[in-house]
């Protein structure tokens, strides 16, 4: 099961890389003309095509592109000629830092709230939490972000509205700088994760073996810890991993709001500058992380479920 799923993940990744590569091939004209403009001399275009290796056939370029990627060579940016690996490396670690801090806060909070809401279903607490999460899900990320800025960095000046971080900063200073984007991401992700956790737990609490345990007269704590929890593990792990994948992508908008030097900001800038090699590279990185996390979700839920682990 696990091996099959891993192979499928790898296949998806290869097809995605092919799609990313082909997307540029389908451009009307080609990259060289797009960059140099229509007034460029044919000789200039030809020279530039040669420099970009556009004169080689597509399948050869695809494999050499893949080979370079595997070696960590992403080529050069079209906008400023700098190596893409330099541009991306630092920004990617910043994005991971932001997403990790947000995840460390969001995951425990969401799971605890979700379990409590499921156990005290239809109580005032559950209704309040459902209302709050429904509205957070409906809000665009930037709305949440600007409300937080208005409250915590304009009305009361505690946190910066622009999250600029650099290598000289201590961990504490960094966390202070990214507090608001982190809080924004946490609020959005907690809402999703909590609703799904609640649904998963309610599903399990309604199953016959829980009713059986209750009819046997076992006490509540024992039912939850020994009967419900092991069975809830698989759906909850799934929920967490899927939301982490969502977090990695949701980071794009939040980075733009807070002018955070991350990969998402770079991607958006490159799309508007039509700096296609940078778009390809950062898009592929985002896709790899996203697919990787979804893969992890599936593998973990296979491992945590004995029925899937030992297929008949």
């Amino acid at each position: 099961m696990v091996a099959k799923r891993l192979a499928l993940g790898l296949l998806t990744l290869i097809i995605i890389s092919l799609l990313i590569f082909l997307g540029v091939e389908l451009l009307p004209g080609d990259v060289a003309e797009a960059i140099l403009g229509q007034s460029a001399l044919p000789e200039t275009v030809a020279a530039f095509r040669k420099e970009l290796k556009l004169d080689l056939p597509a399948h050869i370029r695809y494999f050499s592109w893949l080979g370079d990627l595997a070696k960590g060579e992403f080529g050069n940016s079209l906008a400023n000629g700098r190596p893409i690996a330099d541009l991306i490396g630092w920004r990617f670690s910043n994005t991971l830092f932001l997403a990790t801090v947000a995840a460390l806060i969001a995951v425990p909070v969401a799971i605890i709230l979700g379990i409590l809401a499921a156990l005290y279903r239809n109580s005032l607490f559950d209704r309040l939490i459902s209302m709050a999460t429904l509205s957070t899900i409906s809000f665009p990320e930037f709305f949440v972000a600007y409300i937080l800025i208005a409250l915590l960095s304009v009305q009361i000046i505690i946190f910066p509205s622009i999250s600029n971080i650099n290598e000289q900063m201590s961990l504490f200073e960094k966390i202070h700088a990214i507090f608001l984007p982190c809080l924004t991401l946490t609020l959005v992700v907690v809402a999703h994760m909590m609703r799904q956790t609640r649904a998963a737990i309610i599903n399990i609490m309604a199953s016959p073996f829980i009713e059986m345990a209750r009819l046997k007269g076992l006490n509540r704590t024992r039912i939850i810890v020994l009967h419900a929890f092991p069975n809830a593990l698989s759906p909850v792990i799934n929920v967490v991993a899927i939301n982490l994948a969502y977090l990695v992508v949701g980071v794009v908008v939040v980075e733009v709001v807070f002018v955070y030097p991350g990969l998402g900001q770079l991607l958006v800038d490159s799309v508007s500058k039509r700096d296609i090699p940078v778009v390809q590279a950062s898009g592929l990185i985002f896709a790899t992380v996203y697919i990787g996390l979804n893969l992890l979700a599936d593998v973990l839920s296979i491992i945590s479920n004995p029925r899937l682990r030992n297929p008949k």
Partner: protein
Amino acid sequence: MAFFKLLRQSPLSARIGMAMILINIAAAIFAPVIAPYGETEVVGDVWLSASKDHLLGTDHIGRDMLTRLIYGARNTIAIAFVTTMLSFLIGSISGFFAATIGGWTDLTLSRVIDILMAFPTLIFALMVLSVTGTSITALIFVIAVLDSTRVYRLSRAVAMDIEVMEFCEAARLRGERTWWLMRHEILPNAMPPLVAEFGLRFCFVFLFIAALSFLGLGIQPPTADWGGMVRENAGAITFGIFTALWPAGAIAFLTVGVNLIVDWFLHIASGLKD
């Protein structure tokens, strides 16, 4: 009328949701009548605070904010609606098709869709827009195609259940064609779950377009559009000018409204009594 009977039984939350949507639709339809100024008319100084002449103040180049919001409702909702319709057209037809024909068609389509769904939508849209450039047509098509993958999944699953029923079998034995079967047997029976899904997908598409416009890659100025308006006015927030919160709030207002109704639909569809 079954429809009115259903309306009478609706819970308070769904009624609030309907009122919220009706306000938006009214603003969208009657925009030229109710808006106090023209869509791109410069009427005063930049970032004026709220006053009798400008109920919500003015924006970054001195246009009336209330007017922009009303016209924004028109453009933003219309584009999101067209995109969702297109996505349902593509998604449900291919979904029904896969379910009724089955075999290789179903297998190939489903695998292709699986792969498309494994890719984060926002990143995919950004990459495609970097190649096609930002135009409204490109925007609508890209989002509709990406979103139709979700519709495909649902309509295929629903159609699978209907397709095995006796009346479908009977129609097949009568010699009806696939298209007739899809149109007259499957579609009417698949309607309820598809309608609830329409609300959810609309919210998603609407927020998605708003996010792209906010990133400067969606609907381009000077067309009034809520996401773009947030982007234009956001810089002033650090100076204590909260104009940007109006369009952002309008986006939230509409999505909360739709979600309240969708919640009610899902509740009916799930058949729970409490």
